[in-house]
C-alpha cells in the first residue's frame, strides 16, 4: 500500500552515495548499491546489496543483505547485517531510505562490541589498524 509512493520518492530523490531500484517483475525486490563512506576503510568501494520488502512491510522491517564481500565486524560471511533497526528497534515510520542511510553509517562506524562476524570483530578490537587494512584490501579486491 505504501510501496509505490515510497519507491517513487526513493528513485526520484536518492540519498548521496546510495541508489536503489526495484526489479521490474517484483516491486518488493530492490537492487541497492552503496558507496563506501569517505574516511572509512571502505572508501572508493561500491557495495551491492539486495533488499526485500516482506508482506507485512512497513509493520515489519525489510530484509537486507550484502551481496558484495565485505570485511566488517557487523556483517557476516553471508552478507547478513547486525543492525538494531532491522530487528527489534524497527519502527513503521522508518523507510527504505533511512535503513540504507543507517547501513551506510554502519560502514563509517563499525561496532565491534556487538559483533556478527566474531572473528572480524576480534581482529578489530585487538589490532584495529591491521583489521582496517584487511577491510581496505577486500574493498579493492571485491567492491570495484
Amino acid at each position, binding site marked *: 500500500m*505504501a510501496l509505490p509512493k*515510497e519507491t517513487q520518492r526513493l528513485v526520484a530523490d536518492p540519498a548521496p552515495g546510495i541508489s536503489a531500484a526495484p526489479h521490474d517483475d517484483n516491486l518488493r525486490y530492490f537492487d541497492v548499491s552503496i558507496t563506501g563512506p569517505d574516511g572509512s576503510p571502505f572508501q572508493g568501494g561500491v557495495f551491492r546489496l539486495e533488499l526485500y520488502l516482506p508482506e507485512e512491510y*512497513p*509493520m*515489519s522491517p525489510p530484509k537486507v543483505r550484502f551481496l558484495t564481500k565485505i570485511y566488517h565486524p557487523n556483517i557476516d560471511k553471508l552478507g547478513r547485517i547486525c543492525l538494531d533497526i532491522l530487528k527489534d528497534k524497527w*519502527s513503521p*515510520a522508518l523507510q527504505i531510505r*533511512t535503513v540504507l542511510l543507517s547501513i551506510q553509517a554502519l560502514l563509517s562506524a563499525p561496532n565491534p562490541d556487538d559483533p556478527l562476524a566474531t572473528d572480524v570483530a576480534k581482529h578489530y578490537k585487538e589490532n584495529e589498524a591491521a583489521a582496517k587494512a584487511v577491510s581496505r584490501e577486500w574493498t579493492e579486491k571485491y567492491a570495484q
Partner: protein
Amino acid sequence: MSDESDYYMDDSASDNYYDDDDDEMVDGTQDSDRESSPASEGEASDDDAFGVELSAAALGKVKRKSYEVNFETLSDAAVDRLMNKEAEHVAGIFGLEPSTALLLLRHMAWNKERLIEKYMDNPEAVRKDAGILAAPPLAPTSSSSSAGVRRSARRANSVQPSAPPSTPFMCPVCCDDEPPNTYALACGHAFCSTCWETYLHTKVREEGEFTVRCMDSDCKLLADDAFIARVCSKEDSKRHHELVSRNFVGNSSQYKFCPLPGCSYTISCPSAASKSSLMTIVPTVKCPENHVFCFGCSLDQDHRPLICHVSKLWLKKCQDDSETANWIKSNTKECTKCQSTIEKNGGCNHMTCKKCKNEFCWVCMGPWAEHGNAWYTCNRYEEREGVEARDAQSKSRASLERYLQYYNRWANHEQSARLSLDLYSKTEKKMEEMQTTSNLTWIEVQFARKAVDEVFKCRMTLKWTYAMAFYLAKGNEKELFEDNQRDLEKAVEDLSELLESPIDPDNIPVLRQKMTDKTVYVLKRNEILLDDTAQGYLDGRWKWNADAAILNEAE
C-alpha cells in the same frame, strides 16, 4: 489533597485482600483467619463478587487432607480486578492515572515493591524507561472532565484529538496525504488510522506483543490500554487484554492459568507459590471445568504422590531416547571396521559384517583371522579386555531391566485406568437396560460409577508410585512405601475384577454390596498411601537414590 493519606488508605484496604497473604500462607496454618476476613469485608467494599468467590472457596476447604492444598479459582473478571487493584494501589501512592500505573507495573514485570522503591527514588527515570510521558507540573486533578468517558486523562499516554488535521498532513508511514482519520499518542506523532490499526494488529496478533510503542522511530512512548481499545478491532483489543492478563498471571507465583487449551480460568494457590514448598507438597488443583493439573509444574494430571521435581525427572527419562540407546547398548555391538550397529540373533561367534564384509569375533571383537582354526571357541575369551567389555555390558543391561520393570508398571496402570473408563461406558449401558427391565431405581444402579471413578483415581496414584519407587533409595522407608503400594494395588485389582464380573439382575444386590465395600476399602487405602507420603515429605523421610541424587542435597 495529600498523597500521603491516600497511601495509607489504599495500603490498608488492599493488604487485607492479598498483599500479605503470601506471608501468612506459606506455612498454611492461618487459613481460618483468612477465610473470614476478606469475605466479610467484601460487603463493605465495592468488590462484592470477589468476596463471594472467596467464601465459596472457603466452604470447599472444610475437610482438607494432608495431601491436598487450598486453592481458589479466579475468573477472568476476578483477575482483572486483581490487576486493577494493583494498579490503583500504585496510582494512589503516586497520584497517577491507573492506566499509567498499569504501564509502569508491566514495565517492572508486576514487581510492585520494586516499582514503588524505584519510583520514589527517581520517578523521571522510571517513567522514561517505561515509555511514559514525563510527569506534568500539575497536581493531580479530579478528572471528571467528561462523564461516561473512561478516566483517561491528559497526563496519561492517551489519545489526542483525532479530527482530520487542518494543516497539510501526510502519514509518515503510508505517505497518504488525505487520510480519513488520524491518531496520535500524547507525544503528538500523528499517523493515519489505517496504519495504526495494521500496526497494532501486527503487534498483537503476529508478534503476541502487548507493549506497543509509538510508531515514530525515535519515540519511546507506549500506547496505553484505552488507546489500543479505541483504535484496534474488537478481536485485537480482546487479544491484547488477554496478553496483558497472561503477563500478570505469568509474573506472579501465586497465580497460574489452567494449562488446558482453551481454558481461561486462573487458579490462586499461595501455599504452593514458593519453590521450596514444592519439595514437600504436590499441589494438585482443579479448575471449574474439572481440568485437573499440578499448580507446581503445570502438568495436566494429578501426579501425587510424587513431587514435581522427581516426576519431571521421570517423564524426561521416559521421553528421552536415552533408553533406546540403552537398549542398543545392551543388545548390539558395533562392527570394528565400519561401525555399523549389529544385533546378533543366532549362530556362531564368527561374524561377517553385511556391509563391509569385515570378519570378527563377537566375543572378543578381535579380527577373526587371528582365531586360526579354533572357530568354534574363542580362546581369548578370558583376556582382560574381553572381561571388561562383558562387565560393562551386563551392568547396562541390569539398569535397563530395572527401569523397564518400573516403566512397564507405570504405563500399565495408565493403560488400565483408561480401559476401566471404557469398561464403565459398557457397564453403564447395561445398567440402563436393567433399570428399564427390572424394578431397580436409577440411584440403585449408580454404584459402579463410584467404583470406576475410584479405580481410575487409584490407578493414577499407583502409576506415580512406580515412578517414585524408581527414585527412592533402598531402605526401610522404601519398603514401607512399597507395602502401602502393594496393599493399594491388590485392592484396586480386586475392585477392577469385580467391575468386570457379569451383571444380571439376580446378583445385583450382592454385587452392589461387594463393590461398595471394596470401593470404600480402596478409597481408604489410597488415602493412607497419599497421607503417608505427604507426611513423609514433611518429615523429610524420603531419600532419593543416585538417579535423583541432586534432590537430597537440595533438601
